[in-house]
């Protein structure tokens, strides 16, 4: 077992032990400060009757769909935004404005447009993630050295070849930053959307926990979100970043 893993593991253990001790002191009533054992109970019950599992799966599905659409729209949008002076001076200004808008403000509109459906929440997730991805792609495109572009041109690359073989790969380091940012915005938007909108999901479990004065459920859901955050950061984004760094030898 390597040493860093041992460090991480013991840290987790200490946090849990402190939590148990604090809960054991009974400083606060149980419904305000649940013990680790009570949270564990929520998991066993939630997995046994399937409610927690179902909530997790449907939240991740919304997140996945919304995020995928943000990538499909955000990357080409950033590409055009970075290359076209006209877009920068027109729609670009609008997009920077929209980016400042907290994505949950789209929920009322989404509910009117899509009704009480999955699409409404997915739309909010999309609006949360798409601008970060588009802006990072634009920044990446704009930082491609002029001589790299001229080099490709003088070697006979047409616009499509230039885009696929030079502009996009050169922008990858910047794009991955935007994708990470977009991912965390997507989570935030998803939770905000699910807290307000009635349906099956982690956000709805959170609001149920509040309504039932069931703090252990609230904490259980928070931990699920933290765990998925770690899984995606360590399992997807970090390896992706490392690969890109190696490819470019950025150290």
């Amino acid at each position, binding site marked *: 077992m390597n040493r860093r893993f041992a460090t991480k593991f013991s840290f987790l253990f200490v946090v849990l032990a402190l939590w148990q001790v604090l809960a054991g002191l009974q400083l606060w009533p149980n419904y305000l400060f649940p013990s680790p054992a009570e949270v564990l109970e929520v998991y066993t019950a939630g997995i046994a009757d399937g409610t927690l599992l179902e909530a997790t799966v449907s939240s991740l599905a919304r997140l996945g769909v919304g995020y995928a659409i943000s990538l499909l729209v955000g990357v080409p949008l950033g590409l055009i935004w970075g290359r076209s002076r006209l877009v920068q001076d027109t729609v670009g200004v609008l997009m920077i404005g929209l980016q400042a808008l907290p994505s949950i403000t789209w929920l009322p509109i989404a509910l009117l447009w899509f009704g009480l459906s999955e699409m409404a929440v997915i739309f909010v997730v999309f609006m949360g993630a798409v601008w970060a991805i588009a802006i990072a792609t634009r920044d990446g495109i704009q930082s491609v050295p002029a001589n*790299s572009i*001229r*080099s*490709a*041109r*003088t*070697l*006979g*690359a047409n616009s499509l070849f230039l885009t696929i*073989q030079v502009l996009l790969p050169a922008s990858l380091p910047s794009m991955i930053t935007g994708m990470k940012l977009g991912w965390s915005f997507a989570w935030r938007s998803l939770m905000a959307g699910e807290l307000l909108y009635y349906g099956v999901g982690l956000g709805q479990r959170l609001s149920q926990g509040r309504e039932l004065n069931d703090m252990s459920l609230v904490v259980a859901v928070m931990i699920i979100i933290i765990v998925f955050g770690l899984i995606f950061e360590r399992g997807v984004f970090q390896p992706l970043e490392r690969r890109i760094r190696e490819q470019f030898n950025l150290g």
Partner: protein
Amino acid sequence: MSIHLQNVSKAFSSRGASVQVLEHIELEVQRAEFVCLLGPSGCGKSTLLNLLAGFESPSSGTVIVNGRSPGQPAARAVLLFQDATLFPWLSVEDNVAFGLAAQQMPKPQRRRVAAEYLELVGLHDFRRAKVYQLSGGMRQRVALARALCLKPEILLMDEPFASLDAMTRDLLHEELQRIWLATKATIVFVTHNVREALILGDRVAVLRPRPGRIQRVFPVDLPRPRHFEDPGIAELARGVLHELRKAAH
């Protein structure tokens, strides 16, 4: 005739003011000729190359490259930069094959051509290497192979050896002469190094700055391959330096 510049002028406007960069440039370059453009910084040498590559258009006058207006694929001119501008996400051989891939040559075939040209510049053993593993001189040789494998009729070189150490530069001067004799491409080579211009060029055009003008053209009738230490080079350098000093005033 490979290149024909007729009464070419170029002005840029910056912050409302117009700056004359090139004025009344007259230049003819024969097929397979090696011409060096020599001058201090600010004399418009790079602008002149950009005109030939089609990245800028003249404010007045005509530019004809290979019988066409510049920048068209049919002009068959490739520009090389001071920084090799290799693509770090591609291997050395894929860098060399970049232009061939743009022409949609199938992969096995372009690998073969790339290998052939890497051989020509002496880097065959590095074909699978990454760009960051190469020295500055090696990068320029890769950039040269990348241009040459398109069999261009014209090579436009913008101070390609300026950021290299003197020893590497000497080596590349020899190599470029050898490659030029083998391929018979027309080369327009921009430099601010007098010796470099005299080692490489059939003719050396001395430019004077603000606005850029061709002050005088020196023919260099010395046998090849030429070397840095050739007495003929030193002798000619004196005359060219004199002209350059005059140009600076």
